[in-house]
């Protein structure tokens, strides 16, 4: 089976600081991948490189067999890479509905069904339980709704690969379940998902495979159980 996303020999430096080095990662179509690691280990930098928000200094990124290493982020979004942001970045002056129209009209323009963007946006909001908020200003949303909007906006891009960057940070147990439910549903619909998360219980439940980063390198890769049992992971992240 050929990989949906292939990352090979990736390195990213900020001045003299090496944020990522020698990252090799293949993600299969339909996979649910968990990405863990201590703060500052390079998780967000890695997905910034994958989504194009940052350009990597070394290495190669391929999506569906196509080299995207030098593609600007908007073109990667059009190919089907969508992400949510760790700190929600809603389009604050737009309504919740119009927040979704942006990716629908841009990222998904060539790929979405030829329906009206407004109806389609409404459908996504309904699936996220945000329909009642459609015409509110996005700046006034609660924390959990803001997180849901992040995911909804990523979904509206009709992605093949969804990268969720700590979509559950700061949420209560019930709310975490709610977001997990949504992610499972998306995955069942065929979307490959990379999940960055600190809530281990969610990572364990969700991921088929877990990758652990520490100081810019992959220190362990395996099933959730294998990863948790790994001595390096325990030392670097979980605390023995």
């Amino acid at each position, binding site marked *: 089976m050929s990989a949906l996303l292939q990352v090979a020999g990736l390195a990213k430096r900020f001045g003299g600081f090496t944020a990522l080095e020698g990252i090799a990662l293949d993600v299969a179509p339909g996979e649910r991948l968990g990405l863990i690691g201590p703060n500052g280990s390079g998780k967000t930098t890695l997905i910034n490189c994958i*989504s*194009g*928000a940052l350009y990597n200094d070394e290495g190669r990124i391929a999506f569906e067999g196509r080299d995207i290493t030098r593609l*600007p*982020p*908007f073109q990667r*979004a*059009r190919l089907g890479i*969508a*992400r949510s*942001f760790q700190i929600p*970045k*809603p*389009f*604050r*002056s*737009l309504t919740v509905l*119009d927040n979704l*129209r*942006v*990716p629908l*009209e*841009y*990222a*998904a*323009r060539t790929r979405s069904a030829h329906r009206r963007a407004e109806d389609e946006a409404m459908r996504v909001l309904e699936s996220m339980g945000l329909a009642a908020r459609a015409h509110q200003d996005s700046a006034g949303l609660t924390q959990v709704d803001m997180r849901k909007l992040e995911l909804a*906006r990523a979904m509206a*891009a009709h992605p093949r690969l969804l990268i969720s960057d700590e979509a559950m940070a700061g949420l209560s147990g019930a709310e975490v379940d709610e977001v997990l439910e949504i992610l499972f549903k998306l995955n069942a619909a065929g979307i490959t998902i990379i999940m960055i998360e600190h809530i281990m219980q969610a990572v364990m439940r969700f991921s088929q495979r877990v990758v652990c980063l520490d100081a810019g390198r992959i220190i362990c890769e395996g099933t959730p159980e294998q990863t948790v049992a790994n001595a390096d992971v325990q030392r670097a992240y979980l605390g023995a």
Partner: protein
Amino acid sequence: MRGWGFPAACAAVVVAGLAFTELADNPYYFNAAYVILQALIMAVAWNILGGFTGYVNFGSAAFFAVGAYTSIALLKAAAVPLPLLILAAALVCGLIGLGVGYLTLRLKGVYFAIATLAMGIVLETLINNWSYVGGAKGTAILTPDKHLWFDSYSEMLFMVMLLLALGSVAVSRTLSSSRLGRGLAAIRDDEVAAECSGVPTLRLKLVSTTVMGAMMGAAGAPYPYFVSYVDPLSAFNLFIAVNSIAMPMIGGTAHWAGPVVGALLVGSAQEVITVTISSELNVLLVGIMLVLFITLAPQGIVGLVRKHWKKRA
């Protein structure tokens, strides 16, 4: 306003403008209206970049002046008709706008604003040293005799400005409710998130700066005929730039109607004060209104009205 409302309103304004040229005798009215309409176009143009896209341009006067000087340069060479002057000025300033658009690659926020200010100073220095268009001592342009069926040239200029103003409002209104407008709003709110949602941010910013530049150039093109004497000091006047920022701010930057309301209100107030009290005081007026609106109603007049409607609904 939906469907035919806006075109009908535009047609009504044109008819009212024509009636005005038939009924009014005092040439001052046309001068005053011209000045207000000129400010209106500048405000609408500024708002496309400043309001919709979120990049503050302090160099509006430079676009305006280059528009005016494009006319002068062409008129020195040949008897070019006014519509062609406007087109040429729009083209030249559109290109400068495109160049400014590339600045957004590296400069954001206050740094972009400073760069536009600096661009104005550079362009002013160039014109100051270009003797073909009069250099620092300026140049006189004779107003032609021909003025279609109007009683005077200034009446015709007023109608030209009215059409240009309606045109720019129509462009701005179409833009704001379109896919392009939502893309610009996304850039204003968060450029990284916009890009990750598939918005080609650079391309959209280039469109935005180019349209802004072209509109400002068009607003400046008839200026030499209006004043019949142009020097760099008056054409690059900082007051033009300040007005282009203050009027959308006071009217409201988020909506296409904001700069229109702001320009009509502030522009009219400036004219009234210039005539009744003093021409120096109107500068003070803009300052005071700007401070009041930024502190008390940052969404501008249109923002206040919409908030009021929302509460009632």
